[in-house]
């Protein structure tokens, strides 16, 4: 009781502290801005972008680079450990794998309103059934929890789910909070806009356009970073964020935004639901989807990696053909994950 109160009050002071720091930063910014500008006028304009870039890179984890983040995982193993034992120890109706999924991603994880049962289906869901089959011996021993994009990491950290299989990109930022399996899908950020739009891709045509992203998505992080570094025109308005990428399609159709940025795989499934919108330009990043699990659940990560080894050989292609070939094309080459490397050893 006392401890909790202490913690609460500390948290309160943390908030005050954060506010104070924020105020100080804002003040410093306001005071220093004229200085940097006047210096810029003094003929050092080209140096302005420098500090931003320099401060950008050390923020990443020491031993992680985003281009190799997908390899930051443990080598496959079929052995049980404490995490898997705990899952197997569940009895009766509770003997299920609890998985965070999406129910809004067409062909990835969604509920077809016209099927008689209420089951979720899609590419991610197939993989979940495969994992449940392997760990608990029953593909249907799964409790699905629908999770908004921004809740994926908290849900794992709080132990509300055993894993998240939800078109989740592996990157260094997230690796600080959760553990990932080897990649099971390759994609990249793409721009989605109405066919009649003047937007041609991730370029200057986005000037003065409103862009919608999902809160807590890699798309938002990328846009935010690019706008700060000048890669994205500063006049692009990225303030519209929604709980789920599909909510962006709603905003786009209602004319509240001009474009959507999300993973190509998901953008394609949005385009499949509305023939008047299309993908604009090529993917401007390369990303890999992985199964996210609690940090420290090494046995579960190894086990999922083992399952993925088998799944890539048998199952992956069938699932792709069933769900994704219609939206992403019959050739699965661009989506196939690379041969995994397992950099984590100890």
């Amino acid at each position, binding site marked *: 009781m006392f401890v909790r109160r202490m913690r609460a009050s500390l948290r309160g002071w943390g908030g005050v502290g954060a506010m104070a720091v924020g105020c100080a930063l804002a003040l410093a910014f306001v005071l220093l801005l004229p200085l940097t500008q006047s210096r810029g006028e003094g003929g050092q304009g080209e140096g302005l972008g420098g500090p931003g870039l320099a401060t950008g890179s050390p923020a990443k984890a020491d031993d992680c680079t985003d281009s190799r983040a997908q390899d930051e995982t443990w080598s496959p193993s079929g052995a049980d450990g404490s995490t898997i034992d705990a899952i197997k120890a569940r009895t009766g109706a509770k003997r299920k794998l609890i998985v965070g999924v999406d129910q*809004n991603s*067409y062909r990835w994880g969604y509920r077809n*309103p016209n099927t008689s049962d209420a089951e979720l289906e899609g590419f991610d869901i197939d993989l979940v059934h495969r994992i449940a089959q392997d760990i608990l011996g029953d593909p249907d021993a799964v409790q699905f*929890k629908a*999770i908004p994009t921004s809740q994926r990491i908290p849900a794992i950290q709080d132990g509300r789910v055993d894993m998240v299989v939800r078109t989740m990109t592996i990157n260094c930022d997230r690796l600080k909070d959760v553990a990932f399996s080897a990649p099971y899908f390759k994609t990249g950020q793409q721009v989605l806009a109405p066919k009649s739009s003047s937007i041609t891709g991730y370029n200057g045509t986005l000037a003065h356009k409103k862009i919608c992203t999902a809160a807590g998505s890699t798309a938002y992080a990328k846009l935010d970073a690019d706008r700060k570094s000048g890669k994205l025109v500063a006049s692009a308005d990225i303030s519209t964020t929604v709980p789920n990428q*599909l909510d962006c399609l709603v905003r786009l159709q209602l004319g509240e935004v001009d474009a959507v940025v999300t993973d190509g795989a998901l953008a394609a499934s949005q385009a499949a*639901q*509305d023939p008047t919108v299309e993908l604009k330009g090529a993917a401007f990043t390369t990303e890999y989807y992985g199964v996210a699990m609690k940090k420290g659940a090494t046995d579960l990560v190894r086990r999922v990696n083992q399952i993925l080894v088998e799944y890539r050989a048998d199952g992956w292609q069938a699932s792709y053909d069933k769900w994704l070939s219609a939206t992403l094309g019959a050739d699965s080459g661009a989506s196939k994950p690379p041969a995994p490397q397992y950099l984590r050893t100890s």
Partner: protein
Amino acid sequence: MTHPPTKSAAPPGAGTALPAQRTRPGAPTPSRRTAFAEGVEQLRAAATTEPGRLRVIGAVLAVLIVAFGAVTAWQMTDRAAAADDVLHRSQPLSSSAADIYRSLADANTTASSGFLAGGQETAASRQRYESDISTAAAKLVTAAANSEPGSPAEAAVAKLNKLLPEYKGLVERARVYNRQGYPVGGAYLRYANEKMQQEMLPAAEDLYTKENARLTSDYSDATPYPWAAIALGLLALVALAWAQLRHYRRTNRLLNQGLVAASAATVVTLLWLVVGHTVARAGLDDSYDHGVRSLTVLHDARIASLKARGNENLSLVARGAETVTVDGQTYDAYYYDFDKDMTALGKGLTEAAALANDTAGSKPVAAAEGNMKVWKERHAAARTEDENGDYQAALDKVIGTKDATGECFDSVDANLKTALAHEEAEFQAQATDGRDAMSGLPIGAAMLGVAAAAGALSGIGRRLSEYR
């Protein structure tokens, strides 16, 4: 009839006053004086003679009595108008504001049930949604017609009028996409739900609060005792009594018919005023205690049950997507709200049972309490299924056709509707009684006041005529 005695009495009065003014022939040009000063002078001069005094007494009595009649008529007109407003304006408006809230919330709940049921929405659920929307639209028109321009109620109505078609458009889009099997239909439904929860229901609640405030203010305009009228009436009676006593002492005549008639009319008016208002007040207070209070409690209970149902549905739509943390414990946001709503419903029903003053009122409330108990049991079973990951079983227990919580909600709603209709009738009857007790008072008081004043003047006039 009132004037002849005064007029016939005027010449002698003027005769006594005139010499006083003409006793100053030496003054070159008498400086002009104000009419008031002149009048005071005249009055002072008049008061030195008995006819003059009588004339002053007559004037004071007449003024007192007429003032009593006028103030009574004025105060009771105000109260009767307020009572009429309670009956025909503010209470119906407050009820229809509650109906607007209920219809909107019910439409939203029905839409989410339809979504849960999948693309094949049943005819009954579609029908219910449509009738909810048209009820809300119709009641909004009434509310708009009755709200004063520029008032906050008008702003709330305007906001709702703007949002309702927007909401309906979103739900229709959700339906179309659902039929095609696209999940973007669900996204539209979420957007519609967000609009309803965050913009429309708060505006409807605002309207309800405003209309309720108006009802309360109409009540407080209708019920206070008309102290000014009562005080003036008593004063007039005292003055009349004193005039008669003076008359008796000076003339040894027991009765002056005019003054007696004036006293009688004043007493009747005063009694009518006090008794009539007390009866009206009792009726209005009753209509408030047994009508309005019950109605408010029942409306609130109905809204709580509606919210509970909405949250029950949404917990299955969201499938654990939303959580809240309370005291370090994490709960499903919709289940958490459901529990809160059910507690509010239970409290509301207990209170409604306590307020119900006859079996016709308490029976449906008791029945609703029974429904609520079953609902809670079934909900607990459905939640267990959901927490065990058997989504389909949970769904069947919530929106299924047999032994589902939907049945319980419908029964609670139907019973509360019955109870509301009963309390509404009670309110109507008592408020009508209350208003009717006041209805003749303003005109009656005015007429009696005029008659009493005439009586007083004629009584004084008779005495004056004796001096000619």
